[in-house]
């Protein structure tokens, strides 16, 4: 199980923190799935996705550092973090189908989070919104990849 600490999403920093926790959770789950003996045929895919989510975390940290404009640091409303919590209790003894289904839910939730966050961020920080939008679409693509396994 990957430990995550999801904050409420009411500031720019807390939305990025939430996203970082999502990435940490997703990456950790993929690493655990890659070690599952019954899911071994998909191990490489899971390893690749684990690495991709780690890289997304780095991109988020870069975004937090470089795309911030304190002139428009408005409180964020209408984004309830509870709607985007992911299950990081990686199941044991699963085969490829079950593992992909479990990870697919994470990607689906992540996609929803990022695309919703992009809409909100667009009003505040357009540059950060573009990154969120990109990550959301990547998660949708990851979900499609997992569905095909």
């Amino acid at each position: 199980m990957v430990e995550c600490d999801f904050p409420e999403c009411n500031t720019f920093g807390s939305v990025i923190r939430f996203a970082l926790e999502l990435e940490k959770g997703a990456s950790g789950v993929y690493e655990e799935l890659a070690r599952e003996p019954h899911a071994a045929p998909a191990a490489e895919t899971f390893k690749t996705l684990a690495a991709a989510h780690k890289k997304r975390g780095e991109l988020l940290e870069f975004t937090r550092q470089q795309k911030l404009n304190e002139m428009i640091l408005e409180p964020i409303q209408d984004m309830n973090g509870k709607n985007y919590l992911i299950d990081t209790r990686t199941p044991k003894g699963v085969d490829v189908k079950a593992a992909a289904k479990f990870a697919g839910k994470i990607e689906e939730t992540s996609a929803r989070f990022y695309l919703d966050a992009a809409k909100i961020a667009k009003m505040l920080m357009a540059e950060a919104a573009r990154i969120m939008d990109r990550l959301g679409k990547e998660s949708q693509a990851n979900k499609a990849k997992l569905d095909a396994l």
Partner: protein
Amino acid sequence: MALLSEVKKNYGKLKNYVNGEWIDSTSGKYIDIENPTTGEIIGQVPMSSADETKAAIEAANEAWWAWRETPPITRARVFFKLKEVMEQHFENIARIMVQEQGKTIDEARGETRRTIENVETAAGIPTLMMGYGLEDGGAEGIDEEAVISPLGVFGAVCPFNFPAMIPYWFWPYAVAAGNTYIIKPSSQVPMTQNYLTKLVEEAGFPPGVLNIVNGSHEVSDTLMEHPKVKGISFVGSTPVAKYIYKKSAENGKRVQAQGGAKNSLVVMPDAVLDRTISNMLASFYGCAGQRCLAGSNLVAVGDVAEPLLKSFVERSKKIKVGYGMDESVNMGPVISAKAKTKVIEYIDGAEKEGAKVLLDGRKIKVPGYEKGHFVGPTVIDGVTPDMKIAKEEVFGPVVGYMRMNSLDEAIDFIHSSPFGNAASIYTQSGKLAREFRYRCQVGNVGINVGLVAAMAYFPFAGYKNSFFGDLHGQGQDAVRFFTDRKVVITRWF
């Protein structure tokens, strides 16, 4: 949500940085630095003497000529290195600021970004300080040119509200232009500048080019009186800005002295309310209202007054107050117990003058931070132009809600203020916005922007009692302040 970790619990006794060395103050006098959120003592800052300040001025003066002879592009390269080092230490800079100043981590990260942006802008010095010339400008066969030259040693006296950024409105431009510099950080928040100066050292600036002398008025007065100091930059309250302007000018120095403010945010009936309120919350409550650009009076024009007030109060109630190390906190404390008392006195005074406190932040309790100097978001309705709360700078998270009948009345009210720092209008009408920006006698005008904070490549402006001097901090204004134009007329026989 777990708190972000502090860089250190306690920073001990701070040192001065003079001629490339970290040295203990010889004054023997130290004052405590308090974390305004927790009440913990997190370090001690020396109250340096006049002699120590003079030694720093001499060191800066000694370093000047060699630095002045260093080509601008070479000077710029040291700033590129500084930017790189600052990016590596970005999070530490921000967290020290939260710890000593009380702002939220988002605000501190934003300030760190702006600090770096000033370094980036100053690194453009080879272009920024180019002169101009004209062949046959004097007469046939006589050429004339104006070269832009540095002047020597400059100094800054800095405030508590932006521990990182404000010294960087000045010194990068001064030093990039070939001058040397002395910073006196605020004694309430000296640690951020202390940390940043270690990065300056790491970047490779030669000894004496940038110096830090901690202390109080003894340091400031020495900087203003010393004949080898060419100019002073200051940000703080209006009475002190006036004093600095007068004293420095008496001693033949250039001065740029930024004073206080009383900023009005005017909402027209056609404003997009939801977006307007979000933006105004950041202006009124950001940095707990301790910005010279913070909104202070909310002026509702016409029939927008009632719906705006209702929504604004509801949204203000949702502002989460606490320790800025929690990324979900929207607002931290004010800087000190004294500052808190002053803010509360203003609220009490408004009530006595007949205004109604609709949202009262005076008795806020923040669990776990009982020693913090918190004032919660406060909205006072029924404020009229004659009330003290409408006229004086509060420097806290307090909104004076005013109702007016027309834009003319709102602009007249803005002009009645002795301050002229900033004013904003919220409207969808280009005509009204144009009229507002054209007529308003303030240095920074916002159109649907409540925090009119100029970027590094624009001047941080200010009119009336909000600024004394002519050339502002940041960008081209700063380069002009720290240089002079030398005219050269050339003829060859």
